[in-house]
């Protein structure tokens, strides 16, 4: 089966619009599921439908990845695992950001329930399933039911579209792999640079963390399951201008660099590109250009009189201008691009922050008079 596709996109390339249009082009008789990791993005997909099509056609279902896993992964065949699961209701899922199922804290750190303690390993006391183990649970269900889980899903949906696929990891990837082998056609879209959520602590497929989703599909599918990898369709940014594309791409030399699109008519405005702004000039800068301030978290001090947002929250959004409060490692990366890889998970956030801007992305950082920055201009009030 070669109808599966992974499209690697760049920030601002309009991948949600692309997915929505693809879904609308599909014949009405074919059932489509569109799923994505975050509720915010799910909402974004819905409003995109309303904008383009006024309503969401009945053959299209939109739900978050976890809601999909709960409804179609956990519940239908949970009874295959053991006696208790036949009659138990798994009402919901508990989102955890650390390994779940802690038994006690010992001298050498926390000790966890083993998988043999089935209920304690997978569920809270009120029988809600832990988010870090839900996809593992589903894989076990599928094995125990002679693949009834995947078989059922593939009969419900002719197509499954996954947006922000870079957010999936661990056993999620195993589920994707099984779906790839089914008769459902899978379309994955994501930007491997923009991993901002990583709640899986599972060691399964650990080497494909940190944006190596492409390598997963290249290495793990084997010869029988096909997947076309497309790195060209969504390479052009409708949002960023040349300077921002160039600098943000330098953060990820391993990927195809992004380019500004030729289709959008870009307004002629002054003050375009990437700028470095001294701390003492921030207030002046804010007053002059009114950018949105982007920061790591609430602990970062900003000017409270102007709009502000955490890096993670800003994902998917577009602003004319942004002012970024960088971490120390981000500063090092701006000074020397070869150090960008050292910011680890911060690299994705930095990339997200930079690519929010249509006209100018500025970075708060003090500099010497004789210093110069590749791809960025020093800003001075005149």
């Amino acid at each position, binding site marked *: 089966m070669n109808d599966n596709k992974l499209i690697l996109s760049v920030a601002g390339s309009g991948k949600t619009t692309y997915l929505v249009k693809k879904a609308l082009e599909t014949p009405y008789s074919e*059932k489509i599921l569109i799923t994505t990791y975050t509720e915010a993005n799910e909402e974004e997909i819905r409003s995109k439908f309303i904008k383009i099509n006024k309503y969401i056609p009945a053959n299209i279902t939109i739900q978050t990845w976890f809601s999909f896993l709960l*409804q*179609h992964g956990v*519940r*239908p*065949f*949970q*009874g*295959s695992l053991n006696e208790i699961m*036949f009659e138990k*209701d*798994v009402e919901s899922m508990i989102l955890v950001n650390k390994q779940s199922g802690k038994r006690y804290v010992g001298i050498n750190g926390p000790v966890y329930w083993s998988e043999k303690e089935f209920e304690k390993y997978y569920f809270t006391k009120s029988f809600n399933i832990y988010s870090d183990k839900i996809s593992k649970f589903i894989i076990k269900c599928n094995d125990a*039911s002679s693949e*009834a889980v995947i078989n*059922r*899903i593939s*009969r*419900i*949906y*002719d197509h499954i579209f996954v947006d922000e696929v870079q957010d999936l990891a661990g056993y999620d990837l195993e589920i994707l792999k099984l779906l790839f082998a089914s008769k459902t056609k899978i379309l994955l879209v994501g930007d491997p640079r923009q991993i901002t959520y990583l709640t899986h602590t599972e060691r399964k497929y650990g080497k494909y963390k940190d944006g190596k989703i492409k390598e997963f599909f290249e290495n793990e599918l084997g010869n029988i399951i096909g997947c076309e990898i497309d790195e060209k369709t969504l390479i052009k940014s409708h949002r960023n201008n040349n300077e921002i594309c160039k600098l943000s791409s330098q953060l990820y030399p391993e990927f195809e660099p992004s380019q500004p699109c030729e289709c959008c008519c870009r307004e002629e405005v002054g003050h375009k590109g990437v700028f470095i702004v001294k701390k003492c000039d921030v207030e002046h800068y804010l007053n002059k250009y009114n950018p949105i301030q982007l920061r790591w978290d609430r602990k970062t001090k900003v000017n409270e009189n102007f709009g502000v947002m955490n890096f993670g929250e800003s994902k998917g959004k577009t602003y004319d201008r942004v002012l970024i409060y960088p971490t120390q490692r981000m500063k090092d990366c701006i000074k020397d691009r070869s150090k960008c890889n050292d910011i680890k998970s911060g690299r994705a956030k930095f990339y997200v922050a930079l690519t929010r801007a249509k006209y100018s992305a500025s970075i708060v950082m003090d500099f010497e008079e004789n210093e110069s920055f590749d791809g960025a201009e020093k800003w001075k009030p005149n």
Partner: protein
Amino acid sequence: MNISKLNIENFKCFDGKFSLSFNSGINIIVGNNEAGKSTILEAIHLALTGIYNGRYLRNELSQYLFNIDATNRFLNNIKSDDKTPLPHVNIEVFLENGDESMIALLEGNGNSDRETASGIRLKIEFDESYKDEYEKLIEKETLDSIPIEYYKITWKSFARSTISSRSIPLKSALIDSSSNRYQNGSDVYISRIVKEHLDSKQKAEISQAYRKLKENFMEEDSIKEINKQIKEGSNISNKDVKIAVDLQTQNAWESSLMTYLDEIPFHQIGKGEQCIIKTNLALAHKKTEDANLVLLEEPESHLSHSKLNEFVKSISDKCCDKQVILSTHSSFVANKLGLKNLVFLNKNNQVKLSDLKSGTQDFFMKLPGYDTLRLVLSKKAVLVEGPSDELIFQKAYMIKNDGRLPIEDGIDVISVGLSFKRFLTIAEKMNKCVAVITDNDGDYNSKIINKYKDFKNMDNIKIFADENNVLNTLEPQFVEANNWEMLKKIVVSEKCQNSCKTKAELIDYMIKNKTTWALRIFESDEKVEFPEYIKNAVRWCGE
């Protein structure tokens, strides 16, 4: 899409778990009163619509939905063991043959059979969130009823997803003799069926038109004037009091609009006509995306014979792609719709005629007057050829059994003409105890031994006939068993006493006046002897 199986547990007359499978076309449920026929139809309708007795069950929970024996067992056990689990009602409908995507959506192993199947499950069960309250309650006092206030309804697919009646792809129409009506008298079922004919756009248009109508009412000058007067003249409240039309519910039109037939409100026309119209509407369902199921309760009860014939014909013509499940007491209905489709219910048990030979089914379809259901419903049956045999056998039975008629002991004597073997094939499939009383027609070997050789080794089927070929029918048999001159006095009318001068003439007279002589024996108090094979049959009845 159609129902392939139904599971019922503790619902009304079903104690414990009961299972019944269906075929995709017509299903005829027969059974004695109280066997659970109507309950089966109600259960299916409830699981597919959430409606019971014309209302949403959610608001109508009562302990009478629970099987009385299961309830009493629980109330008894809880006295000695307060850990006794509370009883629950469980109804499961298994679905098949639908749109693949729909079938898959409802698929999972969330059913009491624990098998991978597509379907819907409705459960009335204890709500665990009331655990503390319940424990306190049983600590304090003894229960004398199920604490229904702590119960909830869960309605899920076999994939354990909560569902609503809108999301169920199989639309069910229950057509029964009860008349469940909205407050204004319009019929719940007919508005449901009519509603399901409409697509969502049309429904929205009706809603809007209805709302406009009500708004226009408020804009009427006279109404405005009245409201003004009320406002000024009343001291009812310091708030604004006025008359308005109820616009509360989204589907208000459904309960307020009336279905008319030739200018007559639907519920004012005859019950029989109502039944025909509802059924035809349900069968003519035009929406192709939804499958349709018609549940019919005893259609014969409001219909004359000729109307019934017309009705049954329209069912068998139109149901080709729809499933029909009906209960009946009428052999005519059952014969016409095909005995193969018959399901016989008996004390939480079921027997089907699904592998009945098609020759036999065709025979009864063409000759629907035969009382097949009497055989099906009887405890034991005696098949005879005609009324004279029937009368003689009954008389012989009464003499042996203190004057009781066989039917009083649950033994049904049925005249079947020459179609003994047709009836026996039904008896064979149903494992019914059946006796045949028949003449040897002068050739015991071919007319009895050969003819019935297929049934020879069956314990439940017994053939009673005499081996003596000379005594070929009941009349010579009867004359032989008695003193003919004594017999003559009983059976021959006074006028004709002189014309029967010999034994042979008496036999001849009896053959010519078959029913008459038998009736005279039946009514006479004189002691007569019965042929040996009839006495044997009477003995068999007592076994």
